[in-house]
């Protein structure tokens, strides 16, 4: 609520003249008593609004749990709607940095939004806690102002490659995902680990982001042990129904990345989802204390089962709290705060323990889940936990970074069949 008051005051300020407006923003030098400002880059309009709304619920619930006070600092929360496009993300970041002078930014949701603002937040020394997965932001183009407590695109998919080859003993796989960077990075991560463990990816399908009907792609699926899909947004819902309707599900098991089988998506799914095995860095059935409180309160306040978008922002809030504590009196110094964020190590978050590598990317548990029907509703149940997974999986960091970033044709798929 404090947000609205400040906004209104600010508007009155601009109306009265710019000189007054500057008075509304105390400089950091005298700011110890001033609130610590958190800006959220989210999406509340357009096709990607689903995830954006969930993000806002996550940080909102965290601040409510903490009574709007983190490590003794009063929090001022400002939410900005990017509209889901890079130019909007840039303008809204400017708004948060230049006008609202936030101490830290949470978000954004999409990789293309993050890539549009990474240079800007570095130049303007504003710490950012990302949900978006673009690999290179914590790899070849690591940014000292960014940490990522969610995951890189491939972080979970490495695990799926391992699980599919070693535990499920699959030999031949097909991949299908949207034709964009998040899809490429996911599928490449899966392919690399799966093939390093003796599997073969024999076909890769890339439907456009906007595909009204997946049948032309699903009709090409045959003669494999499994299909790994990395769909995101509302696409998995459409894809899984068609996969089941066309009779493929009955013959070929479906594997899924985290966005394709997110817990928050389950309410949109029916029995077509049953049997799908997915990997995720967050699972609503996690057993940590904070997760049980988190899930229960999400049920109570919003009547929904939370997924990764919500949990990601809840955990980002925990990182802010820990960062303020670590930075102590220097919390208002943005460079010092960014350094403190990199040192954050949490034992109890909704996803389990969280710490960061020196690139600012999370090292955390990854869950393998199986979807089952319980009382007529699909539910994801953890069947295996891979503890402390790094973005580099088990590969050597230097060798990993010497390769190009995962892409549509990197690493090259040597086992494609036609």
């Amino acid at each position, binding site marked *: 609520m404090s947000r609205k008051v400040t906004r209104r005051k600010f508007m009155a300020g601009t109306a009265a003249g710019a000189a007054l407006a500057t008075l509304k923003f105390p400089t950091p030098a005298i700011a110890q008593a001033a609130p610590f400002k958190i800006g959220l880059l989210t999406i509340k*309009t*357009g*096709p*990607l*609004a*689903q*995830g*954006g*709304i969930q993000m806002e619920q996550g940080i909102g619930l965290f601040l409510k749990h903490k009574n709007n006070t983190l490590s003794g600092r009063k929090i001022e929360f400002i939410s900005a709607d990017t509209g889901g496009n890079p130019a909007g993300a840039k303008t809204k970041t400017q708004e948060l940095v230049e006008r609202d002078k936030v101490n830290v930014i949470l978000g954004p949701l999409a990789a293309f939004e993050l890539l549009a603002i990474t240079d800007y937040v570095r130049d303007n020394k504003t710490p950012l806690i990302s949900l978006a997965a673009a690999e290179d932001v914590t790899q070849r183009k690591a940014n000292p102002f960014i940490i990522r407590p969610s995951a890189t695109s491939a972080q979970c998919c490495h695990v799926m490659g391992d699980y599919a080859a070693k535990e499920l003993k699959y030999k031949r796989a097909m991949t299908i995902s949207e*034709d964009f960077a998040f899809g490429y990075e996911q599928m490449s991560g899966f392919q690399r680990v799966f093939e390093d463990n003796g599997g073969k990816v024999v076909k890769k*399908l*890339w*439907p*456009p982001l*906007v*595909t*009204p*009907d997946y*049948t*032309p*792609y699903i*009709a*090409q699926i*045959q003669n494999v042990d499994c299909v790994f899909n990395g769909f995101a*947004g*509302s696409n998995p*819902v*459409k894809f899984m*129904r*068609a996969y089941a*309707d*066309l*009779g*493929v599900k009955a013959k070929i098991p479906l594997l899924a990345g985290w966005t394709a089988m997110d817990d*928050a*998506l389950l*309410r*949109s*799914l*029916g029995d077509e989802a049953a049997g799908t095995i997915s990997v995720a860095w967050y699972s609503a059935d996690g057993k940590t204390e904070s997760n049980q409180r988190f899930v229960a309160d999400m049920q109570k306040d919003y009547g929904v089962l939370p997924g990764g978008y919500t949990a990601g922002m809840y955990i980002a809030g925990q990182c802010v709290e820990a960062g303020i504590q670590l930075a102590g009196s220097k919390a208002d110094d943005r460079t010092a705060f960014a350094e403190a964020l990199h040192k954050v190590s949490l034992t109890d978050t909704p996803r389990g323990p969280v710490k960061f590598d020196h690139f600012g990317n999370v090292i955390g548990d990854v869950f393998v889940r199986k979807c089952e029907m319980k009382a007529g509703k699909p539910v994801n149940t953890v069947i295996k936990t891979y503890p402390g997974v790094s973005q580099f999986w088990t590969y050597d960091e230097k060798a990993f970074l010497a390769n190009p970033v995962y892409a549509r044709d990197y690493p090259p798929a040597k086992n494609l069949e036609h």
Partner: protein
Amino acid sequence: MNLWLTLAVNSISLGGLLFLLSAGFSLIFGLMRIPNLLHGSFFMLGAYLGVSALNWHINFWVAALLSALAMTLIGGLIERFLLRRLAGQELAQVLLTLGLSFIVADVCLMIWTGDPWQPATPEHLRGAVQVGTLFFPIYRLVILAVAIVIAIGLWLMIDWTRLGAMIRAGVDDAPIARVVGIKVSQLFTLIFSLGAALAAFAGVMGAPYLSVYPGLDFEMLPLALIVVILGGTGSLLGALVGSFLIGFLYNFGQAMFPDLAYVILFLPMLLVLVLRPQGLFGRAMP
């Protein structure tokens, strides 16, 4: 072989859905010369209304009809109170219909949230016809059947009823139609409502297979445009042939030329427009 058969069957059923979507668009465009950029919004809003009705455990067909009925009313109101004043002003119509589409999109986001909704396929239409190793979902064949029934209904109405004669007269030459005593303005309201109702009905029919989510409106609008451009405006036969053509182009194009997936529909549309601006079945426009 199997792949091609699946694609062929799916092309036809997608064509059926596209016909339901674009028949109304074609009529509105042909008779009223209105580039109705709201048509995708009618489809999406209709689908959402259907989803809500289904959540109250209303029968699927009743839900589809209720949604169409609601959209008849909404379409009629928009035509009577907003579009009517802008007759002949193409730019104003573009601004109005786009402005309304913003409103519809945001209202839908408010009411139905950003979550995708995918109603279960109606109980009696589940399952698949199995031919050898191939599965053809019954529901998609039902969509096709419904599209054929509606196509026949529309054809009978336009070619064999007094109302149809008036519509044809209006399409051919609205001023003359007025002179001979046809109440063209009432006809406009009727056609616009009918177009909105058909789009909403298509939205509900499509929901168990396309699902409903924010952004669906601007996914469907270009499809309706392409169908009508290819088939020619104001021609029911054109819309029908255009729909099946796009159904085939979409299915085979995506499967055979994945690298062209993004232009597979727009390239033929451009070619037709450049080489034969009136569409494959339309008559040259004045």
